[in-house]
């Protein structure tokens, strides 16, 4: 075998078609994500626009009665929004302290060995399907726990759904907060310890403030997750829209309305059918704004250390 003589030229007369075709396929695959976003927006907006031809936006956003299936249906969304926020509020009241507490413990106190056991356990919690949580809320939390504490409580109630939802969100809040705290440079902690501060003082006065944007981002994402959660509320909180929320009663949320109405066979084009999309659009907007907000917060805390 000798060195090949320079018989062929370096110039390529035919472009490499194979490479170009493949690159086209790759671009198309990447564009599916863009198409999905368009699909979501289009499938929400088009029926919503139809919906608002019949119902005014003001009535929708400020109306206090939600009775879409009645003959003279009312389409004020406030009861659904109120239900969503009450249950979310309960969930967040559970998830934020417990999630942040767990994160601080794992980040600042736990030994490597206990972390290796505790972290995966939290991940298991994150992997449990939400329908299982819903069943747990109805069967165990309501029946066994809450009936003893609040004898007058209804079978379907917001408290049970909110508590269980809170537990479900803990792994997400804990893991994101822990990431934020892990990003704090060791030098900051060491400096604090060197001055004689305890772990508690260091965690509270140094680490958390340094990781604050990331932690707040974790909270915002947790809230967004709670707002968008469907199965737990559908199973455990019932389907009755209520404007003035009482945690011991059931209440319908935006998500459980969408699920209930969507599962029924409403005729395409009817006002009730379109109401699904109007509520869905509102839900999408709310969670979108929160997600964008949390992305901005994450970007801000990443820049602080670069």
């Amino acid at each position: 075998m000798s060195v090949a003589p320079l018989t062929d030229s370096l110039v390529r007369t035919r472009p490499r078609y194979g490479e170009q075709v493949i690159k086209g396929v790759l671009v198309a695959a990447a564009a599916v994500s863009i198409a999905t976003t368009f699909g979501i927006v289009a499938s929400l907006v088009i029926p919503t626009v139809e919906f608002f031809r019949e119902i005014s936006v003001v009535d929708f956003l400020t109306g206090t009665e939600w009775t879409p299936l009645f003959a003279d249906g009312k389409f004020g969304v406030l009861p659904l929004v109120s239900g969503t926020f009450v249950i979310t509020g309960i969930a967040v009241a559970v998830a934020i302290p417990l999630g942040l507490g767990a994160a601080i413990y794992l980040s600042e106190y736990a030994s490597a060995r206990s972390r290796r056991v505790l972290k995966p356990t939290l991940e298991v919690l994150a992997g449990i399907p939400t329908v299982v949580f819903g069943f747990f809320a109805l069967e165990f939390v309501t029946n066994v726990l809450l009936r003893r504490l609040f004898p007058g409580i209804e079978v379907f109630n917001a408290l049970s759904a909110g508590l269980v939802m809170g537990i479900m969100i803990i792994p997400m809040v804990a893991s994101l907060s822990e990431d934020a705290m892990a990003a704090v440079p060791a030098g900051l902690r060491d400096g604090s310890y060197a001055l004689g501060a305890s772990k508690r003082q260091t965690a509270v006065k140094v680490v958390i403030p340094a990781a604050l944007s990331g932690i707040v981002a974790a909270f915002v994402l947790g809230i967004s997750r709670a707002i968008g959660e469907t199965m737990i509320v559908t199973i455990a909180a019932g389907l009755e829209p209520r404007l003035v929320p009482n945690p011991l009663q059931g209440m319908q949320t935006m998500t459980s309305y969408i699920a209930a109405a969507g599962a029924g066979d409403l005729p395409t084009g009817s006002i009730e059918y379109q109401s699904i999309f109007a509520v869905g659009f509102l839900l999408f907007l709310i969670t979108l704004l929160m997600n964008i907000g949390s992305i901005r917060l994450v970007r801000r805390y990443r820049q602080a250390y670069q």
Partner: protein
Amino acid sequence: MEQTVFRLDDLRVWYGEYQALLGVSMTIERNQITAFIGPSGCGKSTLLRSFNRMNDLIPGARVEGLLAYHGTDIYGPDIDPIEVRRRIGMVFQKPNVFPKSIYENVAYGPRVNRMKVDLDDVVEECLTRAALWDEVKSDLRKSAYALSGGQQQRLVIARCIAVQPEVILMDEPCASLDPIATTKVEDLMRELAKDYTIVIVTHNMQQAARVSDRTAFFTAELDEAGVRHGRLVEYGATRQIFSAPAQQSTEDYISGRFG
């Protein structure tokens, strides 16, 4: 065939806004070993990677001036960099064998270039010419990662010559090898120079003195704004560069006064 393989005329290299290399003009001759020496950050590797258009992989990398291979400007508009790289091979600082068997490593080049050759023959011949055949012939299906550092680098060389290049570029090929492996690779270089043109970047002056026919000395200069740029200082026969350099800075570097 002509003696000159590469001709550079005021070749400059930029990374975005930063000019890494000031104009270089030189020629590289056939079947010779040309060494690029100089302190860190003076553009030696940048220049080497320009020869086979590996700089294209760095976003923002840009070349101006002429880099001609047998008279053809390899940065011309119609030139296919894939074709360039088949003819101008490269050995890297850390042996980057593929996570495959020894056989598959050597066979990879001919396969992707759709060369009509008998793979078994090619693998044996290249491993032989890379002075590795006797050490691995008992089990070619063994993982390349099971070899020592020096063996891996010779495997990389075997892999490189399997595509029948004319030129072999070596970017500090012995930097991560022990002295014995280094000697083996240096001996190999002199053997290979009979059939290939070799350009080597090295931090090791003694290596350049031992191995090369011609040596180019580069340095890094600060301009008025305090930005560093690489510059070719002196280029000539190795014997002359090392015994009677024309430039003071060359002599300073060689005698160890800096760098």
